[in-house]
C-alpha cells in the first residue's frame, strides 16, 4: 500500500505534471489533484474514449486488449491507464 502511495506522490511531483486522477468505474474520483468539476469532466470524457479505443483494438483482434492510452495535444499530454475497475489519468505538460 505504501509503495502505491509513494509512487503516486512521486508522479504528482514530477516535472510538468499538471494533475493526477484516479477515478473508479462510475466516474467518481477516488484520488485527484485537480478540482472536482474538472476531474469529473475528464473522467467522463476519457471513459468514453477509452471504451471506444478498447472496442477498436478488440474488434481488430479479440485477443488483444488496450493497456495504455496517450493523447498528445498542443498544450499537454493526457495519459490514461484503463482498467475494469478504475482509470488512472495523468496530465502532463511535456515541454517544460
Amino acid at each position: 500500500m505504501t509503495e502505491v502511495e509513494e509512487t503516486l506522490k512521486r508522479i504528482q511531483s514530477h516535472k510538468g505534471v499538471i494533475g493526477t486522477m484516479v477515478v473508479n468505474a462510475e466516474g467518481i474520483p477516488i484520488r485527484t489533484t485537480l478540482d472536482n468539476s474538472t476531474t469529473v469532466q475528464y473522467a467522463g470524457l476519457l471513459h468514453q474514449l477509452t471504451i471506444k479505443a478498447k472496442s477498436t483494438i478488440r474488434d481488430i483482434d479479440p485477443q488483444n486488449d488496450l493497456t495504455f492510452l496517450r493523447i498528445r495535444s498542443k498544450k499537454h499530454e493526457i495519459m490514461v491507464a484503463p482498467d475494469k475497475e478504475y482509470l488512472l489519468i495523468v496530465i502532463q505538460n511535456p515541454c517544460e
Partner: protein
Amino acid sequence: MPTSPSGSRKSVSHLAVLQSKKSISFTEKAKEALKKGFSGVNQSRMGVSRNLVILPEMKTTEKVNVPGPKTVQVLDENGVDVTPRPLYSSDPGAAKPSKLLSSQEGSLGSDIMASYSMYQNTLNPSVMGQFTRSALGSSTISKSSISATESMAEDLEEPSYKGEKLASFTDMQVMRAAPETVITKEDLEKNIEILLTETDTLRFFDLPTVMISVESEEAEKVIQRNNKYETLCRNRLGNDLYVERMMQTFNGAPKNKDVQCDRIIMEDQGVMATTWDLYDSFDALKLSSSAGKRYAVESSSKANVLPKERLEQKLPAALTDKTSETSSLMDLENVILSKVHEDEEDHAEAIFKSDKFLQDLFFMERVLMENIFQPKLAAYRQLPILKEPEPEEPKEFSECVKVEEVEEVKEEEEEIEISEEQTIPANLERLWSFTCDLTKGLNVSSLAWNKLNPDLLAVGYGHFGFKEQKRGLACCWSIKNPMWPERVYPSPYGVTAVDFSIGTPNLLAVGYYNGTIAIYNVQSSGNVPVLDSSESPQKHVGPVWQLQWIEQDRGTTGDDKREFLVSISADGRVSKWVIRKGLDAHDLMRLKRTTVGSNKKGGEKDKKGEALISRQAPGMCFAFHPKDTNIYLTGTEEGHIHKCSCSYNEQYLETYRGHKGPVYKVTWNPFCPDVFLSCSADWGVMIWQQENFRPFLSFYPTTHVVYDVAWSPKSCYVFAAANESRVEIWDLHASTLDPLIVNVANPGIKFTTVLFAKHTDCLLVGDSDGQVAVYELRNMPTASDCGREDVINALLGCKFN
C-alpha cells in the same frame, strides 16, 4: 319455409335470419318482419343483415327470458336437414367469459370483455354494447346460427346496449383487465422473462395442386374430365341449356368503425454485435461451463439466451452514455455500489491495493519519464530526438535545436561548443544523472550493468575511507526511470562492490565495507538478501573491494560452465564463492606481502627487519583475463600487480611493479588480450603489456588520486579515467600525452567511478555526492579497424622504447 322454434318474438327475427340464407328475394320478407312490430330486444341486432334495413334502436332494460337452448333445425325444400353445424362448440370452459359478460356494468369501453370467437355470435356484441367490436363481414351473417344466438342470449342479464347496432361477426378475444393490484417498484424493475416460441403452422388456405402427372393412375379420369369440360364449354355458347342472366347483388353499406385501445408502447432495442463481444461471449460460455458461474449473472440455464442477454445488457452501457462498465459483472456491482456508500469506500481501497494499480502506476511513471527525458534518452539510445514544434520561429539547424535543449538543462558543467563550426571537437555531453533523495550525500563506490537487461544498472554507495563510514546503499536503476531507483537495498555498512551474475542475471552480489557479501534477487521487490555471508566462517574481515562473477569451464567435473563469485578484500584474500547450500568460500589466493625487488640488497635487509603487522597485503582489485579465466591480475595496496593463476594459490606467476601507491583498478583491454591498464593512488595511470614487468605507458595527468579507469568497449585505444577532480577520456591513437576530453567536476565533488555503456556512446560517472551522471561521447574520432591485435601491438611497439 323453415320452421322456427317457439318464441314468437324471436321467430320473426329468426325468420329474417333464416331468410337471409336464401340469397334471393329476401328483402320482402325482412320488411314483413319489421312490419310485424319487430320489437326484438336482443334481436334488434339481427336486423343487421345484408339488406339495408336499419332496425330501430332499442333500449331495453327488461331482461330477456331466454328459454333454454333449443336446437334449431333448418330444413330445405326437400326436408333435408341442412342445419349448419356450429363452427364453434361452446364448452364448459367458455362459461368463464360468460360470467364476465354478465357482470358487466358501467362505462363503455372501459372494461373489455371476452367474447366468443365464433361466427355465430356475431350478434351478441351489439347487445352487450360494452365491448368493442370489430369489422363486420356481411357474408358472415348467413352463417349465424340460431342456436348460438340463443346460447349467448341466455347469458345476458343486462341486455342494455348503446351504440351501433352493427353486428360484429369476427370478434376479438380481448382480455379483461386484471383486478387492480398495487404495482410496486420492484415489480417494475423485475426481470420479466419473455419466452418466444414458434407456434405451429396454421394453414389458412390450402389449395392442393390440381396437376397430376400424366403417368399416374388417375390421369385417365382427369383427362376425361378435362375433355368433358372442354366440350361443355364449347357447347355452352349457343346452347339453350345455359342461359345467362344478370343478377343484382346487394351490397351492404360499409361503415367505418373506430376502435380505441390502450396506447401500445413500443421500444426500440438495438444491439451492436462487435467482434470482441462475440468473442467474449463465447469465452464466457466456455468458462461458465467449465468453471463456476462467475459470468452468468443471469440464470445460467438459458445458455443459448445468455449471449443475447449479455449483449443486451452491455448494449445500454454503450449506447446510452452511462458510465457503467460493459461487463455484466460490473453492472451488478454498480447496482450494489450505488446503494451503499460505505461499500464504495472499501472499493476504492481495494483499487489501491490491487496489483494492477501498482503496475499501472509503474508504467505511468515510466511514461512520464519518457516525456521529460525524451531528448536525453533518445540521445542515449542513438535515436532521433523528437522535436517539439516551437511556438517561436523554427530553427534552421538541427544542431541549434539540440544545443538549445542542452541549454535548458539546468545542470552545471558542460563542454559543449555552441559555435557552429564545421568541426566540433570531441566532447562529453551530459545527458542526465541518476540521483534521488535517498542517494544524496553518499559516495558512489561501484557501478555494474546487468548482463541480460542493458538498461538496468546497479550502483553501490559507500565511502572509501575508514573515517567517513556512513550507512550504505545498493540501488538498481533503470534507464527508463532516472528519477527513482527500481530497487533499493539499504544496509548499515557502506557498499564497496556490486556485480550482476551472468548465468542468473537476476542475482546481484553486493560487497560491504565490513567484509560481508550479500546476494540479492532483484526480481523480487523485497530488500532481504537471498544469501549472506555474514555467518560464513570464511567471510572476509576487511572491506570487499571488488566482486566479480566468473564463468569458468569446468570440463573435468562435467558441468558446462560453472559460475562462481570471486571477491578480493583488504584482508589479503582472494576468495571464490560458490552457491551450493549457502555461500561457500574457497581461497584462491592469499596475497602475501612481497618485497620490493631483489635488486636492492639493502632494501631487503631493511625489509626483513621490519615488523610486519600482517604478512598479507590488502588486495584492492582484480581482473580476470578475458580469454583465459584461469589467469587473473590482482592489485594490492602495496602498489604491486600480481599475475596469478587459479591453479596455484600460494605463488604468483608474475609481479608487475610500477605503482607507488595502492592500485585501485586493473583492467584488461577487451580487444588486445596482452594489454592491461591500471590506476592507483599515486596519481598515475599505467598501461602494461603482459610480458613486461615495467609499465609500458604511464600517465600522470593531475595531482589527484585516480580512482577508476575503464577501457572503452568500442575502441581499443580509448579509455576513461576518473580522478578526484576530473574525468578524462584518453585516446591513445590520437595522443598519449594529453587526454582527449577532460570534464572537470564541480568543486567539492569527486569523481569516483566510471563505467562505459556497452552499446551506446555513453559513459557513466559516479561521484561523491551520490550522483551517477550519464555523459554522451560526441564527435569521437572514428575508430579505425579496431580489435586486431597487431594494430595495437604496432602502436605499442613503436612507442616502446
